């Protein structure tokens, strides 16, 4: 337990006053502003402007859904996961490394035909040699080794990458497979990069 800091106490004390000042804007009004902000979007980009049920609940609860809502999200997201038909979740870790390092794809500035990257390094430490890593997510250094290279863990890792919110409701990690942002082959490659004994992540 962290000691209760003065700022926390102050925040708690001042919150009711703040809340009373606050103007409540109906969600429909916020959505109207959003639609106007992206009114020139091309037809095939329009769906990105709206929200699915999970995004909406995570927005409304600022990523802290009550237990019942969290359970609903996890169940829904779990149901979205597709596994490789042949049961093999491990692809080519070398290709996976490239995917983990690539941050382009899906942006309006990208050339048509740009292959999407997973950009795992934006948020995670992975291989020890790669020092340019972000800290939005936990370190994944030695992840496969920590899981004793067990086949069941490989499958769980693939599921996590396919849909992070099947494990943690309102996770900040993108749902790569759910959005088809990464293909199944790419997800298998990243899974191998994370889990394979040969991968630099586990050296």
């Amino acid at each position, binding site marked *: 337990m962290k000691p209760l800091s003065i700022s926390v106490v102050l925040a708690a004390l001042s919150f009711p006053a703040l809340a009373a*000042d*606050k*103007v*409540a*804007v109906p*969600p429909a*009004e*916020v959505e109207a*502003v*959003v639609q*106007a*902000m*992206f*009114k*020139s*979007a*091309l037809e095939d*980009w*329009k769906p*990105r*402007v*709206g*929200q699915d049920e999970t*995004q909406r609940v*995570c*927005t409304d609860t*600022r*990523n802290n859904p009550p237990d019942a809502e969290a359970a609903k999200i996890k169940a829904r997201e779990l149901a979205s996961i597709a596994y490789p038909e042949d049961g093999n979740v491990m692809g080519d870790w070398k290709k996976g490394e490239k995917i983990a390092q690539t*941050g382009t794809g*899906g*942006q*309006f*500035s990208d050339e048509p035909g740009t292959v999407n990257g997973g950009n795992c*390094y*934006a*948020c995670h430490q992975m291989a020890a040699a790669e*020092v*340019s*890593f*972000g*800290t*939005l997510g936990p370190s994944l250094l030695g992840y496969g080794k920590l899981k004793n290279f067990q086949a069941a863990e490989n499958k769980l890792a693939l599921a996590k990458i396919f849909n992070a919110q099947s494990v943690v409701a309102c996770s*900040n990690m*993108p*749902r790569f497979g759910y*959005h088809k*942002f990464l293909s199944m082959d790419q997800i298998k490659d990243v899974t191998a990069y994370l889990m394979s004994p040969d991968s630099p992540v586990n050296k």
Partner: protein
Amino acid sequence: MARTRHETRTAAGAGALLAFVLGLAGGVAAEETAADQSEKEIEKYRAMINDPMANPAFLNVDRGEILWKTARGSKNASLETCDLGEGAGKLESAYAKLPRYFKDADKVLDLEQRLLWCMDKIQGADLKEILSRKFSGPGKVSDMEDLVAYIANKSSGMKFSAQVGHPKEQQAYAIGEALFYRRSSIEDFSCATCHGDTGKRIRLQALPDFTKPGKDAQDTMGSWPTYRVSQSQMRTMQHRLWDCYRQMRMPAPEYGSEGITALTLYLTKQADGGEITVPSIKR
């Protein structure tokens, strides 16, 4: 005539600056942490901010002054009677109090929106043409960026005084806050994904936390508009938020839209009391 001279100076200034920055980065010892390194670079940038010879954005300030004072548009008028909130033609401290509510427009406007309003009403300007140059690029100057540089610079040394008294300002602030936490698109990002916690980074890039008032927001907002060394252009908050929505895999947001202004007001409120030192210079 004047413009050509200015452009030459811009190119020379940017080149010298870039060489300086690259030299700096190369000279840093390898064992220093990335955070130390970027902290040192930031210090050097700060030293250059107030030096008009080292910061090419002061050329935007010069060009902006000319644009402000030159009669243009179908009404052949200058912008000198434009009221940015502090009274017609008064520029000092105007930027420190924007975005704010304007009675004549019955809307909360940021600086860019207010400039467009004045260009339309006072000058009868061709807004379509001006907006075709909303962001500068190679061989393309932006009147909007230049005017923002000039006007924001008139608040340099002052402190943000965020305007949230009027009901429409309160509403805009609340919308901005809602937008900040709103998740969407194909990577499920909101602004809070990347700016929701203190001391986080993407790769090696430090991410300011905008969920609470204070230093992060103050240092950030007080340093825009800024000369982006990596882009060789001066940029305003309109461009920064356009760039963050790009990273969010959203479509390009409308320039001067209500949503961008609402977000800017939210961020400015978090930066309230912070000192403005602009145009600054950044990576």
